[in-house]
């Protein structure tokens, strides 16, 4: 229940023969002759896991929408379904769930058929905390967070994601990683460099 | 010839540094000039063939003693001291005749002393054994008592310095933010 921590004092033999130093030195020399574990960052990059909360994107309509939710929501919000365009149904749930709702600027746009599509969808990432509440709130699996994490830019303007950028990120994501299994990470070979001592055995990736 | 050149340059250096010691007002510059004088005097010692004294001059004087001065100077707030004129001008001019008199007296003593000097009895030994060894043998036989007295004086000086420089620990009441 309660454990007293204790270390016995240095003995005279240890003091005179510098045994404490020698022990430490033996550890460091062993490490000095082991493999290095670093990733040479700008030249090699790890693949972030699928759950990584990076830049935002809009998934586009390509037939993999969560059904029947998507159809219900398009009917309720009167949304025109255009393949290859954003799945957004202009429900404002993301804005409602956001701790900093000022960062969203969402507006619908009328098309000829009388229905609506999303017209404006700006996100100001300078205010964003990348918490993922908006992603949880999205009822049609449209808004998501991709693995893009190098987000530095020269001007503040670049920190605004508009609808075009979001759709581009989304298409890119759907092409690259949408079909991956929900696995802790997928780049076993890259992670091996850090984890080789730990002898990790992960179950095989199912394609 | 070369020896003369070296000796003269060292002497000149020493004298310039000595003038610097007297004239400069900032104590930190003064200690630097003193250091320079000490090093050049060590050079004169080397020219004179007194290697041990020269090396000890460097080791003890230039490093150990002068360092105390530097530490004292850098530890003490000098802003106030630097503002003031650091020379007694009038008394300095008044003292010049006295210094001149001193010079004359010293010159007299030196000239008379040279006339009555003994001839070198260790010259052969120095050539054979080297300076250091001869000094050691003479120091620890003939001047052993003086050596002991000097070491005692050093010890007393050290203890005295520690006692003088010690500071009573001040205690403060316990208030914290």
């Amino acid at each position, binding site marked *: 229940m309660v454990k007293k921590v*204790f270390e016995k004092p240095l003995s005279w033999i240890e003091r005179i023969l510098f045994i404490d130093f020698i022990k430490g030195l033996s550890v460091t020399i062993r490490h000095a002759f082991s493999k290095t574990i670093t990733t040479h960052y700008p030249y090699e990059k790890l693949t972030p896991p699928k759950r990584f909360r990076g830049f935002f994107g809009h998934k586009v309509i390509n037939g993999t929408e969560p059904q029947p939710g998507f159809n219900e929501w398009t009917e309720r919000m009167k949304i025109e379904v255009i393949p290859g365009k954003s799945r957004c149904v202009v429900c404002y749930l993301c804005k409602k769930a956001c701790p900093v709702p000022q960062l969203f600027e969402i507006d619908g746009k009328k098309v000829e058929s009388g229905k609506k599509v999303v017209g404006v969808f700006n996100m100001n990432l300078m205010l964003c905390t990348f918490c993922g509440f908006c992603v949880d709130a999205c009822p049609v699996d449209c808004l998501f967070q991709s693995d893009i994490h190098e987000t530095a830019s020269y001007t503040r303007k670049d920190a605004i994601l508009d609808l075009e950028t979001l759709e581009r990120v989304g298409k890119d994501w759907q092409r690259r990683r949408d079909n991956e299994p929900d696995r802790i990470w997928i780049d076993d070979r890259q992670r091996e460099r850090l984890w080789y*001592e*730990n002898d990790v055995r992960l179950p095989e990736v199912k394609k | 010839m070369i020896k003369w050149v070296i000796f003269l340059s060292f002497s000149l250096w020493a004298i310039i540094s000595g003038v610097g010691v007297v004239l400069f007002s900032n104590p930190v510059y003064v200690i630097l000039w003193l250091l320079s004088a000490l090093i050049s005097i060590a050079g004169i010692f080397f020219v004179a063939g007194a290697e041990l004294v020269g090396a000890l001059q460097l080791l003890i004087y230039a490093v150990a003693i002068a360092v105390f001065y530097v530490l004292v100077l850098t530890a003490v707030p000098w802003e106030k001291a630097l503002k003031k004129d650091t020379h007694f001008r009038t008394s300095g001019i008044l003292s010049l005749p006295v210094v001149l008199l001193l010079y004359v007296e010293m010159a007299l003593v030196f000239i008379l002393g040279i006339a009555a000097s003994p001839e070198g009895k260790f010259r052969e030994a120095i050539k054979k054994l080297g300076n250091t060894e001869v000094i050691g043998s003479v120091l620890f036989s003939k001047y052993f008592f003086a050596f002991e007295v000097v070491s005692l004086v050093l010890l007393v000086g050290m203890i005295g310095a520690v006692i003088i420089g010690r500071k009573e620990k001040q205690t403060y009441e316990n208030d914290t933010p």
Partner: protein
Amino acid sequence: MPWAKGEDFGDLKQRFKNLNIVELDTETSLHIDKENLIPLLEAVKEKGFKLFLDHSVVDLKDVFEKDKDYRAVAKANLLAFPEDKLSRYQAFYILYNVEERKRVIVKTRTDGKLPTIEKLWFAGKWAEREAYDMFGIEYEGHENLARAFMWETYPYYPLRKDFPLEGFPEQDLPSLNDVILGDKLEGTMNYNPKHTIVPTLEDLEITEKRRLKKKAQIVLNWGPLHPGTHGTMWFLFDLEGERIVQTDVILGQLHRGVEKLAEHEQYNQFLVYTDRMDYLSALCSNQAWVVAVERLLGIHQLVPEKAKYIRTMMSELQRINSHLLWLGTYALDLGALTIFLYAFKEREKIMDILEGITGARLTISYPRVGGVRMDLPEGALEVIKAFIDRFPRELGDWERILSRNRIWLRRNKGVGHISREDAYFYGLTGPVIRGSGIAYDIRKVEPYDAYPEVEFDIPVGEVGDCYDRYLVRVEEMKQSIGIIRQCVEKLEKMPKDAPFMMESPDKKIKITLDGLGLKVPAGDIYSSGENPRGELGFYIMSVGAFKPYRVKIRPPSYYNLSIYPHLMKDRVIADAVTVLASIDPVVGETDR
């Protein structure tokens, strides 16, 4: 539930006529008038409630203005003397009895003046400074009633209800783009250029001057940006040679008004800000907040077992993570440069795990009220198992370099000695109090999530110096490994599709993943979690709305730091880093 019972205070009832003992589901509180506050606190302290936990004030202005709220609050019996509508503030003092494991809240009402408790608990001195800073409460007899976070000339009291969240538009602050590129930004980028006033250099100078009397020749500014302070703390050392005569702490360099934000966020959304308080142990803070809200809702029993185990396991991983950073920087401060990178090597593995499971490395926001955000991904348990199998060996390596090294011993033993009485007096918690030999651990005292079901020991030190704190933290890492192992075993046995979010049986409380529309009934609670740095407590007062009425965070680092000036008396500068690192404050938490 570790709350004191009403009968414990039976004798006090006779002594104090106005004393009103209230027992709720969530807490036990003593209501007393202002005049009898100090005698009551003294009496309670004598009864064994020696450890000071927290003190602050609630501004009741909005409650009195809105009749509906007032009725709800009065019905829930949250107010001391609810009929008194003139006294605007309600002060509360949270105390703990270490021997009998009981907690109690003392509540009183005031209109702006309170007697000081600095003689009873030093930690109260700092709490009072904070309350003075945030509410403008005048403490009579307080020795150093300087503002805790804001600068000295700041005219407002930010946590009062009449101070708007956006502040007052008074001063032009052009955005960076305006200055450099001349851009006129439109749309979402168009910030309001008017802000509440910000400090000028003169203000900061006044702040620096208004401090305890200067005691020595040299005043060393240690911080706000200094590698030894682990963040942006500002220490002023009065030095005599290298000996420190007096220490002053100026906080507030990272003050972001988290408590004010909490009053304007929904319960679930505030999770994001708990990440940013103690950013080294975000998950533990998340868990503490989530548990507090669940207890306030009364649903903490209904959370699915899987979620509980996942939360426990992850927060123990986070604890190791945080202690690793502490170990690395501690060794770095004492000159052992290599341990820092060794610790970061293992920390990187934990980061990999956390990133794979939660999606973020630092600001995790993984738990949700009623469960966790996502189930564990494939392969997570295997990786964690591989990690905990290897980790004790690495820890042993570091201990071989450090624990019995003569230099390490000389730098740590006898430095920063905290006695048991001091630990109570300064309101210490976490490894700092355990280093002094007091087995105070919330995970045992008020167990939450899966902690009652796992076995672990509380490591305690004997002397209470830096070395004991070091050993305690190292031992805590080993205990965490044990907890994680038990959790992994349990989780492996659970079916893959077991629920990870709570489903309310009676649809009375609707809980969704995003927490939209989480309405909490009127009530208040003090609930705490064991963070790597100590007890992170949340005092939440709800008036039955979607947003909390008042959230007071008890930051462990803030009170742990309050002993620092005391410890630094008559030590040298080199010990300043040792002691500071062994207390291990995180500025995001002290300042909030």
